[in-house]
């Protein structure tokens, strides 16, 4: 973890103000993205992972608002930037691709017009140079006959092709950081693998860093170097990907892993996480996961643990790993053998 950090998010808070109530969608999120590496942000729907990503580029629409924290990009806090300064960052130094390739492209402009726009804004390329560069980019993302594609409209392309176009558009200005918000969720499984591989290849080629937002631990295992697990607007565990899969610490992370099917052992059922995610307006006082946690004690229910270091750059937000822990001192959160079937 001694690598240079391209992005450091500290105590980020983004809330939505609806009818006088504050809904804390992102509630003190902290994570780093080492340069040239991929950070995965994992969590269920509503855990705040997408809002965290949109907050980085300040693309939060009213009634949402970033209410606190720091977003340091190459040492500069983006939250101090003016809107005009942010526009120079968006699509230029930091790019983003989205979940829905079917609706993320403007239906009334050609592929070429849409890629060219970023090149015109950030590089000042005219129509002719912009078109040439667009064709190059389409070729780079593996779109066949790019010269023909630049003149086509989004509806003439399949979902996978459109996501490739989104990637081409995002990479137009050689960004240093790419934020991918569930880039494969809406795609067929075979196309998913292709898109992930493409992102990985381009990352190696261009040396950019990636924030990969997903709810799919399979995607994390394939593409990420580091992982932040989010639950109810907070990061509950941060570790490098190997450690996370080999030695998960937070009971929620363990729950996620246990609910994944495995191919290496004989397994009859998956173990689900009991209960449901609490609604935003009825967050528990203590640990957000306590009501669903098999190990929860009175302490867990009454007080929120901090995100503490627990070793080699790993952090976990759980009382079990603190001196204050009042439950069974021998508690084993992760028992790999438990995941094999009983008989």
């Amino acid at each position, binding site marked *: 973890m001694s690598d240079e950090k391209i992005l450091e998010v500290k105590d980020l808070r983004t809330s939505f103000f609806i009818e006088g109530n504050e809904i804390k969608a992102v509630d003190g999120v902290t994570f780093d993205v080492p340069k040239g590496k991929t950070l995965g942000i994992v969590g269920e729907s509503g855990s705040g992972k997408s809002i965290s990503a949109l907050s980085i*580029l300040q693309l939060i629409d009213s009634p949402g608002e970033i209410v606190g924290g720091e977003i340091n990009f190459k040492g500069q806090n983006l939250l101090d930037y003016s809107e005009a300064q942010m526009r120079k*960052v968006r699509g230029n130094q930091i790019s983003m691709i989205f979940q829905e390739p079917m609706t993320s492209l*403007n239906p009334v402009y050609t592929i070429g017009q849409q890629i060219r726009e970023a090149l015109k804004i950030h590089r000042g390329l005219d129509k002719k140079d912009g078109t040439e560069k667009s064709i190059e980019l389409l070729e780079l993302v593996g779109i066949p006959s790019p010269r023909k594609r630049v003149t086509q409209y989004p509806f003439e392309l399949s979902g996978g092709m459109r996501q490739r176009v989104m990637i081409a558009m995002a990479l137009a200005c050689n960004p240093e950081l790419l934020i991918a918000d569930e880039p494969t969720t809406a795609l067929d499984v075979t196309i998913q693998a292709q898109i992930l591989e493409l992102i990985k290849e381009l990352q190696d080629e261009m040396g950019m860093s990636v924030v990969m937002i997903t709810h799919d631990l399979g995607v994390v295992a394939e593409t990420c170097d580091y992982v932040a697990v989010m639950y109810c607007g907070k990061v509950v565990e941060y570790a490098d990907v190997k450690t996370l899969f080999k030695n998960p610490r937070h009971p929620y992370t363990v729950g996620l892993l246990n609910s994944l099917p495995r191919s290496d052992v004989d397994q009859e059922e998956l173990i689900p996480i009991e209960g449901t995610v609490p609604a935003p307006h009825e967050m528990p006082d203590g640990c957000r996961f306590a009501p669903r946690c098999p190990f929860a004690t009175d302490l867990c229910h009454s007080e929120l643990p901090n995100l503490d270091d627990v070793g080699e750059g790993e952090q976990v937000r759980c009382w079990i790993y603190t001196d204050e822990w009042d439950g069974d001192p021998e508690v084993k959160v992760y028992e790999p053998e438990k995941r094999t079937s009983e008989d």
Partner: protein
Amino acid sequence: MTVYIIRRILQLIPVLLGVTVLVFLLMHLTPGNPAQLMAGENAPPEMVAQIENRLGLNDPLPVQYFDYVVGVVQGDLGTSMRYNTPVIDEVAPRFWVTIELALYATVLSIFLGLIAGIISAVRQYSVADVSIMIVALFGLSMPNFWLGLMLMQWFSINLGWFPPTGWGSPEQILLPVITLGTAGAAIIARMTRSSMLEVISQDYIRTARAKGVKERIIIYKHALKNALIPVVTVVGLQFGALLAGAVLTEEVFAINGMGRLLVDSIMNRDFPVVQACILIISVVFVVVNLLVDISYKFLNKRIDLND
């Protein structure tokens, strides 16, 4: 594209034939004998019979209809009963006045409606938005003859800025155009607002923001072109209402347009002129809606006109 336009024009033929049937029957289903009307109340029966023969009123209806359609196709819209002149000579000069009035009113309503609608959508729930929507509600609810009379009262009679009647000079044109265009502007403003609000929340608008596009360009380039599709439909449909409104506006401002001619002809039972006016208004309406359909293709490439 060309194939589509040709096909659409061919499709107009049955529609227009339907219109001629209705217009033709109009003359024959209304009570009263046109020959008697032409000859006068106290005319001798021989004279009435002579006129009936001349007009072919004793022929079977299908034969009369056929003669009528053949005449229309050749540009012969019949003879005015009141002036005893070819109908086309009565209608043609009036037609251009009405088209001019309707066109200016359309341009005004599109221009005002779009600007107001965009401002409303971009600043949703602001003072500007609420004021625009209240004004639009008034514009929509106000009968245009009343608006015309009020404008005339204030600007022509009290302030003396504009002549109260007539058509031709820019000063004469302004009040009738405002009178006729207000309702359309209100409808277009409301339509633009809701259409823009829907488009602004789309994913591709977020994509444009993520590219670093300026907010102004997002509104005018990325959002507006998508939002225009339903607005254009409304403009086409409004044109029919506009032609109807033109009748009242022409009456209020004493403009010698086709609307006024139509009303006068109905009063005087000058059926050939009534028929011609209705026929022409129908053709204009159908053609305008054809133009609207074609314009979709330029707004949204996804609409396949060959389907």
